[in-house]
């Protein structure tokens, strides 16, 4: 029973939209949010990746090594290995969710050249963010990765809690 309650349901058209988003932005990383009710996704929000914006990587929780690496890259190259969400887009999405009575369920992003597994950076930032979600009145979301490294997109969903990664299974319907 608990299985049926906790498993995330992603409708096929929303999954397809997310894959299309990843492909449109490749080789740059895409990012976005999935929202719904009772673990069923109803809506996708594309969020701009502004990692190339001046100073963006400083205010994200990238560690010193990642910042140093990003600094050596051009803005366009930065977007190939990292994302920073446009927080104005994020707030607009958050407001829309509240008006529609939806919960934030998933934060997604793509790995154009790498497997659908959270990187060290992903895990660190998600862990830092754990204390922020309740302050902004949102439940801790799962993290979905879309890999485009092989021909067919690979999609995996995870819980990231206190630095620990565990699978968050989903079904497509």
């Amino acid at each position, binding site marked *: 029973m608990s299985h049926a309650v906790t498993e995330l349901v992603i409708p096929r058209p929303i999954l397809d939209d997310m894959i299309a988003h990843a492909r449109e932005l490749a080789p740059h990383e895409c990012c976005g949010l999935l929202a719904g009710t009772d673990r069923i996704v109803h809506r996708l929000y594309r969020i701009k990746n*502004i990692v190339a914006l001046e100073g963006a990587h400083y*205010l994200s929780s*990238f560690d010193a090594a990642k910042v140093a690496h990003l600094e050596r890259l051009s803005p366009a190259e930065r977007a190939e290995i990292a994302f920073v969400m446009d*927080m104005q887009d994020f707030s607009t999405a958050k407001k829309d969710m509240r008006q529609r009575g939806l919960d934030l369920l998933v934060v997604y992003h793509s790995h154009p*050249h790498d497997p659908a597994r959270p990187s060290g950076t992903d895990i660190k930032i998600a862990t830092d963010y754990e204390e922020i979600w309740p302050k*902004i009145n949102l439940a801790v979301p799962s*993290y979905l990765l879309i890999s485009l490294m092989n021909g067919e997109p690979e999609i995996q969903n995870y819980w990231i809690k206190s630095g620990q990664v565990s699978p968050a299974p989903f079904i497509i319907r």
Partner: protein
Amino acid sequence: MIKVRIPTPLRPLTKNQGEVSVAAASIEDLVNNLEAAYPGIKARLCDDKGELRRFVNIYVNEEDIRFLKGKDTALKTGDEVSIVPAIAGGSPWPA
């Protein structure tokens, strides 16, 4: 006094404090008073024109100041302000 939550990436500027208290009647006031106490913090939050940068949010009691009055948003004692950094991540190190 207004309580301000400081996110991890800014804590090196606030002597590692996750929460600080400042006197302020508006967000603009708050940012300037934070800057006086913790030099360097303003540039992380605002651009040259004083507008909030797109990779940071400031919430007053859970509402984004962009949906209130921006930097002119009024503050009163008891308000809770959270500085929220962008959700971010990346790929593993390139080979």
